């Protein structure tokens, strides 16, 4: 059984493998079956031959790969905490070699994904490629669309600058319009009722672990179902002609796909090099002046939400978008005719055009509204100036928390300050170290006030224990006022 299978395998694959490839490939193939795998991947027949119209799917895969690579590299320096996120992004942008370039590729890459995604959907729609037992393929694609929007929404907050903070505040507030569970959902996403460091942690985990994992799964399903159904091919043409002119995925379609990928990466590279993405000042939740605007692809939705107030808000925020999304998702179930030629599908095409034109008009209205309102315009100018001045300033490293003991002491309280002078006068620091950091001779005093209360400290200073005197600790002879000051200083050592 085993032998006969092996020999039949050899008969099938050995001659071409040896003539086309070297001995190493043959060796590898016998262990991995890579030849059959490559053939399955590359010989996918494309009815009607290779075409520029089919590049968007692989373009998306390529962009997703680029996002993963740049994202993993960015994580080398990024810290997802409200304290440090902004500093680390500033560090990446202003100090790390090629940091601004890689961050810009990642940020522009997210916009590129949305653009190519819309092109991919439009091509699929125009070509009627969702028809013919491809409902699940379409659904998996809808899932990927939603996940990608989730990626851009969660990624937007991570730099924790003004625009990230306020755009996400508005974005998450929309959730509270959902009846009954809205506020609970919002709190769940934010990790509390307000935006804070827990929100950042949640968005980070969604952005780098959960959503990417789901995207992997959905891409696998999407590609599998695509291969199962086969490439849809051109809009028209009889089956026989199409089969005659079919050609395998490799080499021509691969070439076209790679040329498209190269165009994308060159475009991103040029953008990143000549117009690097900026970073605004750190998020300041107390700023009441800030006028946030979401990323461009969310602007139409943002504008749409302005028209719905009070009791009707549910209609505008939930019901209408929900219905449109449902219509979109259910498309292959509703439109069951086999007809693929767009000019024979006027209703479907009209609805598609109206929705996209509507989004365009909403975007235009938002822009126009901003340009016509002098208050908003001057605020935008201020915000722009803030971003520019922040970008021009050199990178300011963050003062580490443990350093603040010394730095803040002078400000803390005058009694402790006086106590510090006494600490040095009495040469306590000779053994306990400056700022009570401890030396080989005596333990550190940082945190000693947590261990003992003030009364106990006073008693220990006046009458040290046997263990203390054995270690060289003298009795402290001070008047009550000075002793109080010294204890106040010990209190401050944290």
């Amino acid at each position, binding site marked *: 059984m085993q032998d006969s299978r092996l020999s039949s395998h050899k008969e099938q694959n050995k001659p071409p493998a040896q003539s086309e490839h070297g001995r190493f490939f043959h060796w590898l193939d016998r262990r991995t079956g890579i030849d059959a795998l490559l053939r399955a991947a590359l010989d996918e027949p494309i009815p009607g031959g290779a075409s520029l119209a089919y590049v968007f799917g692989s373009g998306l895969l390529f962009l997703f790969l680029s996002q993963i690579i740049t994202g993993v590299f960015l994580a080398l320096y990024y810290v997802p905490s409200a304290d440090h996120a902004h500093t680390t992004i500033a560090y990446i942008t202003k100090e790390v070699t*090629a940091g601004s370039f890689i961050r810009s590729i990642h940020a522009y890459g997210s916009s590129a994904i949305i653009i190519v995604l819309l092109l991919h959907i439009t091509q699929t729609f125009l070509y009627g490629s969702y028809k013919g037992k491809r409902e699940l393929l379409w659904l998996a694609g809808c899932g990927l669309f939603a996940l990608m929007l989730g990626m851009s929404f969660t990624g937007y907050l991570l730099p924790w600058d003004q625009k990230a903070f306020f755009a996400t505040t508005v974005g998450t507030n929309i959730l509270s319009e959902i009846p009954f569970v809205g506020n609970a959902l919002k709190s769940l996403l934010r990790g509390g009722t307000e935006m804070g460091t827990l929100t950042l942690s949640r968005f980070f985990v969604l952005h780098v672990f959960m959503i990417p994992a789901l995207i992997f799964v959905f891409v696998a399903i999407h590609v599998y179902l695509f291969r199962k159904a086969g490439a849809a091919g051109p809009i028209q043409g009889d089956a026989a002609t199409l089969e005659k002119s079919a050609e395998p995925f490799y080499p021509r379609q691969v070439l076209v796909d790679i040329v498209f990928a190269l165009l994308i990466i060159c475009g991103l590279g040029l953008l990143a090099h000549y117009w690097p993405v900026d970073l605004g000042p750190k998020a300041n939740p107390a700023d009441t002046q800030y006028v946030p605007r979401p990323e461009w692809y969310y602007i139409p939705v943002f504008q749409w939400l302005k028209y719905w107030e009070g009791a009707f808000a549910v209609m505008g925020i939930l019901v209408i978008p929900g219905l449109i999304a449902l219509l979109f998702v259910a498309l292959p179930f509703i439109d069951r005719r086999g007809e693929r030629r767009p000019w024979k599908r006027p209703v479907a095409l009209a609805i598609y055009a109206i929705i996209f034109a509507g989004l365009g008009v909403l975007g235009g209205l938002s822009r126009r509204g901003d340009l016509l309102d002098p208050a908003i315009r001057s605020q935008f100018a201020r915000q722009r100036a803030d971003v520019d001045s922040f970008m021009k300033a050199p990178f300011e490293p963050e003062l580490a928390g443990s350093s603040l003991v010394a730095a803040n002491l002078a400000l803390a309280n005058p009694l402790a300050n006086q106590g510090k002078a006494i600490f040095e006068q009495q040469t306590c620091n000779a053994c306990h170290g400056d700022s009570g950091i401890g030396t080989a001779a005596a333990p550190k005093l940082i945190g000693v006030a947590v261990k003992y209360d003030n009364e106990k400290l006073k008693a220990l200073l006046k009458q040290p224990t046997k263990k203390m005197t054995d270690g060289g600790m003298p009795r402290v002879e001070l008047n009550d006022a000075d002793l109080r000051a010294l204890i106040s200083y010990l209190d401050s050592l944290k």
Partner: protein
Amino acid sequence: MQEVTPGNSAGAPAPKGIVAELPLPARRSFLGVLLGAGMASVGALLSVPLLRFVLHPLLRATTPLAWSEVGNAEELAAALPTKKLIAVEQRDGWRKIVSERAVYVIKQENGQLAVLSSICPHLGCSVAWQAEKNVFSCPCHGGLFASDGKLLGGPPPRRMDFLESKIEGGVLIVQYQYFRQLVRNKEILA
């Protein structure tokens, strides 16, 4: 509706009807080499910024040790030796750590100001200046040093350590460093 079953392509002869001037294998390997070379060169080009990004902490020109301010040189020269607390700043990636260290400002025989570390070269206790006895003494094991830091007695293996210092614009500045204990010759700890 054209339905194509992809399964038949695996290992089977190429689909019928392909127009090709060259035999398929030859055409494929030429394009394959072209694609491979193109992709390899673009990949190599793109990996340059990624590599530089990763290697940033290693390749960055090593920042010279930070200089810390000790104080106005003239004022310091008035009463010597003087104990001063300096703020030592260290960079750690995107953050800086500021810590306080004690140093002694002394006058050398040639009249120049110099800065001594207050850490005893014996076991690392803080050496205290005893003005009334005109000596530095270590409270731990009784090491004694003269007012210029020379070893007078006790267990320390060498004199008190000099720190690199200079006067800039009337201000005495110093480079704070740590030195190995229990060795006869001053040895910088990295």
